[in-house]
C-alpha cells in the first residue's frame, strides 16, 4: 500500500533501538560495578602483599635490631627494591625510635620520610588510590623488638585497573556490537514480516488488488486530501451481473478466472493513479480523480461497463461478464466517505434495477427511493406478520372446453397510508432480503387454505398455482415445508401447482432439481414460468420434472398476426416431452382462437378472467358448476 510509506519508523525497530540502549546502559552499570569491585580487591591484594613483605622484613631484621646492626638491616630492606610496588619502608624500635629505612629511587619530597608507624591505618578495604601503609611487629622469641612500616604505591594497581577497564570496555563494545547485529537482523526480519502482514491484510489474494479495508483506508485518505485541495473524485461501484451463474455452471475455478480478468480489465480502463479494489465476492470499487467536470464520473463508469461487456476468454469457455455500475461524485453527491459509499451503492442498485450492463449516476431522488424501499421492507415484514396482505386469484381455463380448471394465486398489498402497492414494487424489495421466503410461505399457506375450502365439496378439483422464488427453492427444507402446509390445509397435493422460473432453477441447478423431484414425488404439480425468455435449453426440459410450461405473455401479445412459429414450436416441443402448455396474457378472442387451434392446453388472461377476490372466484366456481357453459 502506498499509504504505508507515510508512516513513521516501524514500532519494532524503535523497540530494538530502545532495547539496545537499555542493554548498553546495563553493560555500563555492570562494568562500573566490576571496576569498583576490582579496585577494592586490587587494593586488598596490595595491602596483603605489602603485609607479607613487612612480615618478611620484620622476621629478617630481628637479629639486626638485637645486635644494633643498621647496615645489615638496610641490606635486608634493600631486598625490597625487587618489589615494584613498595615505595618506602622504615624500621622503628619498640621505643618508636627510627632504626633504618628504605626509599625507592626516584621519590621526592615528603614521600622520602612518609613510612611512619603513625600513618598506618587499620581500614584495609576501601576505595582509594592513596598509598597503602602497613606495619608488622618485629618479634624475637615472643618479645616485641620494634615495628616495620611498608608504604606500597598504587601506581601498578591503577595501571592494572586501567587495563581492566579497557578490557571491560572492549568486551562491552563487542557485546553491544553483537547485540546490535542480532537485533538489527531481527528487526529487519520483523519489518519484513510486518510488510508481508500488511500486504496480506490489505490485498485480495485472488486479484492482487487492494481489499475492502485497504480501499476504505485509502478512500478516507484521498477524500481528506481532496477536501483540502478542493478536487473532485468519483466513486464507482461495480457488481457483476451473473457471477453466481458462472460459479454454479462452470465451477469456482472459472469464477475465479473471470474475477482475475475483470480485475485486469478494470485496471486497464482507468489511469495508474486511480484506485481499483475488490471489495467483495463479485463487487469491485474504483476511485477516480476528476480533473474538470462532474460528468467525467459517469463517462468513466460507462467506459468500465463497456469494458466489462465484452467476452472474456476463460480456459473452458468464453463468458460475457456484464456488470452493473453505480457512480457517485465527491463532493457533489456526498461530502463524506459514508454518504459517498451509500450514494454509490444506491446508484448501483438503480443500475441493477434498470437491467444488466448499465451504468447509473447517483441522483438525489434515488435516496428518496432507497428510503422508500427500506420503509417498504419494514412495513412488508409487519404486514406479513399481521396478515395484512391478501390474495387474488386469476382463473385458468382449458382451451378447448373453456372449463375452469385452476387459478393462479397473486398477492396484493393495500398499504394503510400509501394505498395499494403493486407486486412489481414490493416483490423486488422482498427479493432483496430474506423476506421473500416469509412472503412465499405466507402466500402458499393462504392459497392452500383457500383452495382446500373451495375444493371441499367439488366433484372436479380446481387447482391453485403459486409462484415460488429462487430463494425459497434454495431452502433445504422447502419440500418438507410445502408438504407440511398441504397437510395442515388438507389440500390434495395434485391440486397444488408450484410455478418456478427458468432462471431461478439455473441459478441453483442441483438443489433445484432435487427439490423438484421431492415435490413431484409428493404428487405436487410443477410448472415452468416465463418460458422462452431465458436460456430455454432443451436439456433443461429433460432434467426438470415439470407438468406445464407457461408461455410468456410477450409471445402471446403479437398473436395471431405475428410470432406464431415460436408459439407453435413451444407447444409441439412441450407436447412431445409430454408437458402441458399454458398461455398467459390472453386478451383477444382471436388469440384464444389461434391458441386453441395451435393445440394450447390452458389459457389465462384478462379475456377469460381478471384476478379476483376469494369470494368472487368462489362464486365463479359455483356458477360454473351450475352452468358448465363457458361465459366467453
Amino acid at each position, binding site marked *: 500500500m502506498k499509504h504505508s510509506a507515510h508512516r513513521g519508523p516501524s514500532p519494532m525497530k524503535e523497540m530494538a533501538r530502545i532495547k539496545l540502549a537499555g542493554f548498553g546502559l546495563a553493560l555500563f552499570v555492570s562494568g562500573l560495578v566490576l571496576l569498583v569491585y576490582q579496585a577494592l580487591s586490587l587494593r586488598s591484594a596490595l595491602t596483603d602483599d605489602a603485609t607479607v613483605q613487612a612480615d618478611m622484613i620484620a622476621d629478617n631484621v630481628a*637479629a639486626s635490631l*638485637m645486635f*644494633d646492626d643498621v647496615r645489615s638491616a638496610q641490606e635486608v630492606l634493600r631486598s625490597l627494591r625487587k618489589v615494584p610496588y613498595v615505595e618506602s619502608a622504615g624500621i622503628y624500635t619498640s621505643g618508636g625510635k627510627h632504626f633504618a629505612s628504605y626509599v625507592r629511587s626516584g621519590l621526592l619530597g615528603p614521600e622520602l620520610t612518609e613510612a611512619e608507624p603513625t600513618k598506618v591505618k587499620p581500614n584495609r578495604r576501601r576505595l582509594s588510590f592513596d598509598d597503602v601503609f602497613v606495619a608488622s611487629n618485629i618479634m624475637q622469641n615472643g618479645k616485641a623488638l620494634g615495628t616495620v612500616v611498608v608504604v606500597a604505591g598504587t601506581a601498578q594497581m591503577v595501571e592494572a585497573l586501567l587495563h581492566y577497564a579497557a578490557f571491560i570496555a572492549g568486551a562491552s563494545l563487542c557485546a553491544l556490537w553483537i547485540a546490535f547485529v542480532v537485533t538489527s537482523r531481527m528487526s529487519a526480519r520483523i519489518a519484513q514480516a510486518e510488510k508481508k502482514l500488511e500486504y496480506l491484510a490489505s490485498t485480495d489474494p485472488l486479484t492482487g488488488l487492494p481489499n475492502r479495508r485497504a480501499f476504505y483506508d485509502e478512500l478516507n485518505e484521498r477524500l481528506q486530501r481532496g477536501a483540502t485541495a478542493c478536487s473532485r473524485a468519483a466513486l464507482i461501484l461495480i457488481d457483476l451481473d451473473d457471477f453466481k451463474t458462472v460459479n454454479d455452471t462452470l465451477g469456482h475455478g472459472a469464477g475465479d478466472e473471470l474475477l482475475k480478468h475483470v480485475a485486469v480489465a478494470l485496471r486497464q480502463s482507468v489511469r495508474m493513479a486511480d484506485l481499483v479494489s475488490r471489495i467483495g465476492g463479485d463487487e469491485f470499487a474504483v476511485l477516480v480523480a476528476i480533473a474538470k467536470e462532474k460528468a467525467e464520473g459517469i463517462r468513466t463508469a460507462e467506459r468500465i461497463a463497456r469494458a466489462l461487456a465484452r467476452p472474456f476468454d476463460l480456459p473452458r469457455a468464453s463468458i460475457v461478464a456484464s456488470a452493473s455500475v453505480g457512480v457517485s461524485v465527491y463532493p457533489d453527491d456526498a461530502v463524506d466517505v459514508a454518504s459517498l459509499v451509500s450514494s454509490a451503492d444506491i446508484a448501483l442498485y438503480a443500475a441493477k434495477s434498470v437491467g444488466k450492463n448499465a451504468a447509473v449516476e447517483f441522483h438525489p431522488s434515488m435516496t428518496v427511493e432507497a428510503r422508500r424501499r427500506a420503509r417498504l421492507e419494514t412495513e412488508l415484514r409487519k404486514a406479513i406478520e399481521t396478515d395484512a396482505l391478501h390474495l387474488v386469484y386469476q382463473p385458468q381455463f382449458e382451451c378447448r372446453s373453456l372449463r375452469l380448471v385452476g387459478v393462479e394465486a397473486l398477492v396484493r398489498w393495500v398499504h394503510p397510508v400509501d394505498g395499494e402497492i403493486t407486486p412489481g414494487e414490493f416483490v423486488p424489495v422482498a427479493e432483496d432480503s430474506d423476506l421473500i421466503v416469509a412472503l412465499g410461505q405466507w402466500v402458499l399457506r393462504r392459497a392452500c387454505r383457500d383452495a382446500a375450502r373451495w375444493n371441499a365439496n367439488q366433484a372436479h378439483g380446481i387447482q391453485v398455482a403459486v409462484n415460488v422464488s429462487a430463494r425459497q427453492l434454495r431452502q433445504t427444507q422447502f419440500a418438507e415445508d410445502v408438504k407440511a402446509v398441504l397437510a395442515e390445509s388438507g389440500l390434495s397435493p395434485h391440486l397444488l401447482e408450484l410455478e418456478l422460473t427458468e432462471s431461478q432453477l439455473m441459478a441453483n441447478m442441483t438443489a433445484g432439481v432435487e427439490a423438484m423431484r421431492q415435490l413431484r414425488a409428493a404428487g405436487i404439480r410443477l410448472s415452468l414460468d416465463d418460458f422462452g425468455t431465458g436460456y430455454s435449453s432443451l436439456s433443461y426440459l429433460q432434467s426438470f420434472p415439470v407438468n406445464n410450461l407457461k408461455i410468456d405473455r410477450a409471445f402471446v401479445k403479437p398473436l395471431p398476426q405475428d410470432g406464431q412459429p415460436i408459439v407453435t414450436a413451444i407447444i409441439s416441443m412441450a407436447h412431445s416431452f409430454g408437458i402441458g402448455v399454458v398461455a398467459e396474457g390472453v386478451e383477444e378472442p382471436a388469440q384464444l382462437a389461434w391458441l386453441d387451434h395451435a393445440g394450447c392446453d390452458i389459457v389465462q388472461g384478462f379475456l377469460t378472467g381478471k384476478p379476483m377476490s376469494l369470494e368472487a372466484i368462489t362464486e365463479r366456481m359455483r356458477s360454473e358448476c351450475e352452468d358448465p357453459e363457458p361465459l366467453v
Partner: protein
Amino acid sequence: MSRIVFVLLALAACAGLQMPAHAQVDLYSLEAAYIYNFTEFTEWPGAQPSGALTVCVEPRTELGVALGKLNGRAVAGKTWSVKPIPEAGAVGACNVLIVEDAASSAAAKSASAHDAPTLIVRAADAEAGDAPYIVMLTRDGDRLRFDIDNKEAARRHLGLSSKLLRLARNVI
C-alpha cells in the same frame, strides 16, 4: 655510646627487665649482652637438660662480673646459669664457654671439651692463642663485631641461626 645503650635497652626489653637509668654502661656489659643474644640464635643438639643453660666464665674478670648479672635470665624457655669454668674433665658440661685468658683457653682445648656441643665464645681482648672458638668478638671502635666459625659449630652439632650468621663480620 648511644648504640651500647640501645643494645642494652633491647636486652632489657628481651629480658623483661627495666634497667636502672643510672646503671653504668660499659663495654663489658655490651659484650655480656651480645653473648646473651648469641644464645638466642643457637640451638643445642639432642635433649638438653631443660630449664638450665650453663654459661661457664671466669667469674673474677670484668666480663665475668657482667655476665654474672645475667644469671637467672630466661632464654627461649631456659634459664641462664652462670658458673665458673670447671675442672678440665667437666668442661663438656658447659653449654657456653667464655674464653678470655690462658686458663679458659686451656679449658676450651681440653679433651673433654673437644667434641662437646659447647658454644665457645672468644671475648674481645682475649689472649687465647690457638684455642678453638665458634664466635669470636672483636672491638671496632666503640662497638663490637664478631666472626663465626660455622664449621666448628657444625662439628659440635650446634645450630647457628642464619640471622646470626648474616650479622657476622666473617664466617669460616
